[in-house]
C-alpha cells in the first residue's frame, strides 16, 4: 500500500510542476493571443492536477472553463479590438 501512495504523490508532484511552469509562462506572455493559448494549456494542466488530487468535480468544471471558455473569450476580445484598429488605419489612409 505504501508503494502506491508514493507513486500517486510523484504524479501529484509532476502535475504541480507542470501547472507552475505553464502558469509562469502564461503570466509572462506579453501578447494576448499567445497568452490565450498558454491559458488553455494551463487549464488542461489544472484539470490533470485536480484529477490526481481526487477532485473530479472541480476537474470537470475546470476542463470546460479553463480549456475552452476563458481562452475563447480572450481571442474574441482581441479579434474585436484588432478589427476596430484596422478600421482606424483605413480611415487615416483615406484622409
Amino acid at each position, binding site marked *: 500500500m505504501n508503494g502506491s501512495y508514493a507513486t500517486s*504523490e510523484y504524479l501529484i508532484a509532476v502535475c504541480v510542476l507542470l501547472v507552475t511552469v505553464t502558469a509562469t509562462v502564461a503570466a509572462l506572455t506579453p501578447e494576448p493571443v499567445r497568452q490565450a493559448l498558454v491559458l488553455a494549456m494551463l487549464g488542461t494542466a489544472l484539470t490533470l492536477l485536480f484529477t490526481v488530487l481526487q477532485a473530479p468535480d472541480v476537474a470537470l468544471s475546470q476542463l470546460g472553463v479553463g480549456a475552452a471558455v476563458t481562452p*475563447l473569450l480572450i481571442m474574441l476580445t482581441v479579434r474585436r479590438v484588432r*478589427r476596430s484598429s484596422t*478600421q482606424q488605419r483605413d480611415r487615416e489612409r483615406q484622409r
Partner: protein
Amino acid sequence: MSRRLRLALFWAAAVVFAVAFTAACTGLPDFGTLSHPYGSRAIAAAFHQRTANTISSVNFDQRAFDTLGEESILFAAVLGGLVLLRRARDERLAGVRRGRVLPSTRMFGSLLLPITLVTGVYIVAHGQLSPGGGFQGGVILATGLHLAYIAADYGVLKAIRPLAVLDAADAVGAGAFAVLGLVGLAVGAAYLQNVLPLGTFGQLSSGGLVPVINAAVGVEVGSGVVVLLAGFLDQAVEIVSPTGKDNGAGR
C-alpha cells in the same frame, strides 16, 4: 504612477507576501494529512441527508445559502457583461459570409453535438450521485452548443440558439434558486433547508432539494454562458463601428 515605481512597489509587496505566506504554510497540517475535521463532519451530514456526492451536498444543502450568493455573482456578471456588449446606437450589423467547412469536420460536429448535449444533461441530472452538477453540466451544455459553429457556420449557430428564450431562462434559473429556499419557510423550517423527501441513498431521486437546485443552477449557468458568448461573438464577427469601412467578417 511611473512603471519603475510600480515595479518597486510590487517587489516590496512580493517579498512581504512571500515571507508571510511561507511562514503560514509551515503552520499548516502536512500535505495529505489524515485529519480533516470539517471534511469528516460534512461527510457525516451528507450521509444523514442521503446524498452520495458529498460535494453536491455541501454546495446545495449544507452551504446552500452561500451558493445562492455565488450564483448571484454569476447572474450579476452575466447581466453586466450583456449590458456592456449590447449593440450601441451608432453600430450596425454586417452580413456574415458563409464559411466553408470540411465534410469530415461537418460530420464529426453533427455527430458530437447531440452526444455532448446529452452528456451535459446527464451530468446536471446526476449531480447528487456522481461527479457533476449544475455548474459543470451547464458549462458543458453551453460549450457543446458551439460545436454548431465549428461544424457549420455562424448562421446555423444563430438558428439553434434562441437568445430571447435563453435570456429569460437565465433569469428564471437564478430566481428559481431563491424561490426554492422559500419551500423551507413554508413548512416552518429555515430558508433553503432541505425539507423535501430524501429518497433512498444512491438513487437518482435521492438528496431532496439537491437535484432540484442542481437543475436550476444548470439552466442558469448553461444559458448564462451561451448568452455571454453570443455577446462576444456578435462583437467579434458581426457588429461594425459606425465610421469604419469594414466589410464584414472576412478579416
